[in-house]
């Protein structure tokens, strides 16, 4: 019998309490989220992506771990072997072996070749998701990323968290 998904909120809240930290204020969005139906088949869509696993390309500045709200633009023609990770809150061993587990670039390039997805945006965006200030993400980082998606004229956006 399958075990249920891990309760990260409870575990992390308990850990913080044990460490003597103030209770972490988890983001909770109770309102119905905005929702738009797909206007054309995926095979005709341009797909954008943002990943929070701290992925960067060699030559770019790596992320730091203290509420880094910067993001990187990684060309979707990037060599997979040029990808790196910098993050403090997950085991990066497998992501460093194969970045596709947190940044599915080869997977998506293949699906474009197969005609499943129309095309990829010129750049995919990445950031380091270990940002303790949810206000800075909501008010600062998310709007800047949204601007990019709008400017890139993507039809769909895939969010890949860690």
């Amino acid at each position: 019998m399958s075990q249920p998904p891990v309760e990260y909120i409870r575990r992390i809240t308990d850990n913080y309490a044990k460490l003597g930290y103030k209770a972490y204020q988890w983001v909770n969005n109770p309102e119905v989220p905005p929702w738009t139906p797909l206007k054309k088949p995926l095979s005709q869509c341009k797909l954008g992506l943002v990943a929070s696993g701290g992925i960067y390309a060699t030559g770019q500045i790596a992320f730091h771990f203290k509420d880094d709200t910067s993001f990187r633009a990684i060309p979707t023609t990037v060599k997979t072997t040029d990808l790196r990770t910098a993050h403090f809150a997950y085991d990066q061993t497998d992501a460093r072996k194969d970045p596709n587990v947190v940044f599915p670039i080869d997977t998506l390039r293949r699906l474009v070749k197969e005609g499943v997805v129309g095309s990829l945006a010129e750049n995919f965006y990445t950031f380091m998701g270990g940002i303790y200030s949810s206000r800075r993400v909501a008010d600062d980082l998310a709007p800047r990323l949204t601007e990019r998606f709008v400017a890139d004229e993507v039809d769909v956006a895939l969010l890949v968290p860690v």
Partner: protein
Amino acid sequence: MDILKAGNPPRAAFLDYPLGHTTGKPSQPELQREIMLQALESFTSLTVPGQIKVLPFRWDDEDWKPTAMTEGDARTPRHDTPQYQTEEDRIRAEANAAACEVCEVRTSAIG
């Protein structure tokens, strides 16, 4: 799943894999492709805002779950300087930063 539900995005596909494996297992492109196909299908099959599709893939065993639930905070310290994966990365990044007065979007930190 609990964090996903609290965030409440318009549509979501949930993969019950260990942290750091959001889109699959390393060096398994066929599996990664299957996972992605099922996830992308959500763009058309999910019709109610906030709906979550649970993807039908299982990590080999579920031994990782009890550990994930009970282990202490295994995070590394929160350094406030760029944490390069390799020393070569740091050298390249610093050379790029030095070489341009107005850094290109692709090499520099944006924001």
